[in-house]
């Protein structure tokens, strides 16, 4: 896959913004504003991880849904809610685990045990 864009790549752009926030912006703020800057830097990290890891995660999510005979989380949710998987929670949890772990790996990898 080749991107038509020039460098910096999307990830390199994010990193540049983050470095500026970390080194310059943070030095001039404290209290509530400093907390909000940290939240923003954390959000850039989430986007960066999603860019790096997102494609195979999307494929895995689709494959899991297909394996369960549904085409979306909404359809799966509806089937669970109407009892179609009641006898099968153990397998369902096992199948959904890697999908949820993927989400955590992008959002907050330190949370994984």
């Amino acid at each position, binding site marked *: 896959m080749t991107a038509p864009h020039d460098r910096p790549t999307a990830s390199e752009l994010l990193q540049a913004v983050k470095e500026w926030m970390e080194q310059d912006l943070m030095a001039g703020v404290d209290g509530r504003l400093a907390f909000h800057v940290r939240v923003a830097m954390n959000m850039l990290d989430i986007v960066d991880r999603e860019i790096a890891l997102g494609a195979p995660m999307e494929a895995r999510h689709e494959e899991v849904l297909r394996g369960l005979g549904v085409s979306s989380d909404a359809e799966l*949710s509806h089937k*669970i809610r109407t009892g179609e998987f009641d006898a099968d929670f153990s397998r369902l*949890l096992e199948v959904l685990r890697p999908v949820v772990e993927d989400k955590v790996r992008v959002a*907050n990898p330190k949370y994984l045990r």
Partner: protein
Amino acid sequence: MAKLGMAGGGMSELEQGIARVMNASEVTNLRRLSGGASRETWMLSADGGDYVMQRVRAGRPDGLGLEPQVLIAAHRAGVPVAELVVDGSHSTELERPFMIVRAVQGESIARKIQRDEEFTEARGVLASQLGAAAARTHQISADEVPGLNQSDQLTMYRNVMDEMGEPHPVFEIAFRWLDAHRPAHVRQTLVHGDLRLGNVLVSSQGLTAVLDWELAHIGDPMEDLGWLCVRAWRFGGAQPVAGIGSYEQLFDAYEAVSGLRPDFDAVRWWEVLGTLKWGIICINQATTHLRGISRSHELAAIGRRVCENEYDLIEYLTEMVK
């Protein structure tokens, strides 16, 4: 010197109002602390004592509810709480409903309580003290504070979830499992509704006050114990109770006060419900941003914490459906 000659000798209008409702000759040092979404919190000194005033935010029609009555009942039951000094829930003296309590010393920030050297001794006893405070809270019966909400928590959060319309298969499994495994023989008592680090004050010796009673309701008392053990409220700590204590410490202290041993399975049921509930609150926060009700990158970021709760629910439910 424009203030010279004003009644109350240089006090601001709000300070004068507070002095009037407290029957104090002088109110000084009034300063606003960061409060919750529905309340303003102010610190103040009056005639040499320190007090906290909570007032409904402008534009919030919900009032103080029954919180002053709940505080009185909790105080009577022996729960460590800030003493109510003025109940202004039906007063217009300070423009909006308010209450004033005596200030209590202590730290509320979870990370400090969990990590700072100053709280080493407190960490050893806090789980027991929380268990005892919960047991005393749960000795308050429904008719002591008439009019409190008695809604079924599972139904309540089902409705919030449906209103937002975001699909989360793991949450649906949790709803099914919770509905099929409701605890039997449930007592109905006063429930604090948000008992956790962040809503209690802790000194170097331990618990000094249980705060934030605005979500108090009538229900299964085990809700408070389960909520205390939800992983989000462990704040990264390794132990189940508020990250700093064991189930045994919590249950032993609860039993010593009430004579009732908490049922572990019931507490775990509420822990699962609490995890689901926190996940739904996270969706709700992000929705508040996405719908433009309150645009905020902080609220937006919380949307990506929903999956932490899905992850925890998979751990709980995998163990429970075995």
